[in-house]
């Protein structure tokens, strides 16, 4: 045993802090975990969504393709329509996300204020090449995301998005 005797005051302060802390933790832990739930929830990769775009009609020039799917937002279910920029690169179909990697505005192909053969974001004049690569010296810090694509009965299916693999 050490020579430092624990005083009555110290003993009481340690036990009261310990027991009080335990009780407070027991009370707060469920509530904090409850609040943190959205951060810790696992998200499944999305399914492929069938669009009305015929594969045969896709050309080298990017076109806007809308795709609608049922989005489950906690207790609220709704049909949400998203967009992809789709074009053919040789035989490969490329579908790019229209969400600008600067601050999330929607980019446009050959926008009236932008350049020929480029994606342009009207919010802060961010520019991307055709394959989604961000052009140095403009605000975006990375290339546009890419959607996985599939074909079904001659029509285009759009899947979950992934980081750009073309740049």
């Amino acid at each position, binding site marked *: 045993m050490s020579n430092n005797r624990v005083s009555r005051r110290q003993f009481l302060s340690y036990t009261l802090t310990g027991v009080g802390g335990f009780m407070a933790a027991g009370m*707060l832990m*469920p*509530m904090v975990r*409850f609040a943190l739930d959205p951060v810790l929830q696992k998200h499944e990769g999305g399914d492929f969504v069938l669009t009305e775009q015929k594969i045969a009609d896709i050309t080298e020039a990017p076109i806007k393709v809308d795709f609608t799917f049922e989005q489950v937002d906690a*207790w609220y279910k709704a049909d949400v329509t998203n967009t992809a920029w789709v074009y053919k690169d040789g035989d490969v179909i490329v579908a790019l996300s229209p969400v600008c990697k600067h601050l999330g505005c929607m980019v446009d192909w050959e926008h009236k204020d932008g350049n020929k053969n480029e994606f342009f974001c009207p919010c802060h004049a961010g520019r991307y090449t055709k394959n989604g690569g961000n052009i140095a010296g403009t605000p975006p810090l990375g290339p546009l995301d890419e959607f996985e694509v599939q074909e079904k009965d001659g029509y285009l299916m759009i899947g979950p998005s992934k980081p750009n693999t073309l740049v």
Partner: protein
Amino acid sequence: MLNKIYDWVDERLDITPIWRDIADHEVPEHVNPAHHFSAFVYCFGGLTFFITVIQILSGMFLTMYYVPDVENAWKSVYYLQNEVAFGEIVRGMHHWGASLVIVMMFLHTLRVFFTGSYKKPRELNWMVGVGIFGVMIGLGFTGYLLPWDMKALFATKVGIEIAASVPFIGQMIKVLLAGDATIIGAQTLTRFFAIHVFFLPAVLFGLLAAHFIMIRRQGVSGPL
């Protein structure tokens, strides 16, 4: 570490007298269960406050998921209870705590009554306590509607009919509470939500502060 932070702040702001003023007070022998075990009856006021704190905390967390809307209220309650981690616990704390506050408050009132603590000079504190009782009942009544299930709906219909039976102004009270002369619906739910989370808690904080300041100023009543 904590001591050093405390000393650093205390050196600049002299905070010790502030909390000493709040924390240092005599607990007379007749209210200390260590001396007379029967003195545990003096704990009920503190327990009421403790559970009230739990109610405030769990309520704050519940509003992260709850929506006061006829379409989504029940669905959001179902979601937070069944899909969110510890949702059943947090909602359970608020649900059971609500009843427990009433029980503790009732026991506290009995203790004050049978020890005659309401007598001069503490009449005002008794009156404030009755005010707190009313606010707590109001919190229970308005909170009961929020899950928007059948029990909530019909209990509120009955409650509003009781309010409507007040002579002369009954109909006005009814419309003021329900937001509509005939429907218990969208407007009733938003009103009850606003009353439950903003108006009544604000009144409650004021009354609790008055209750505590008075008991500190007057001290606990003497032994029987």
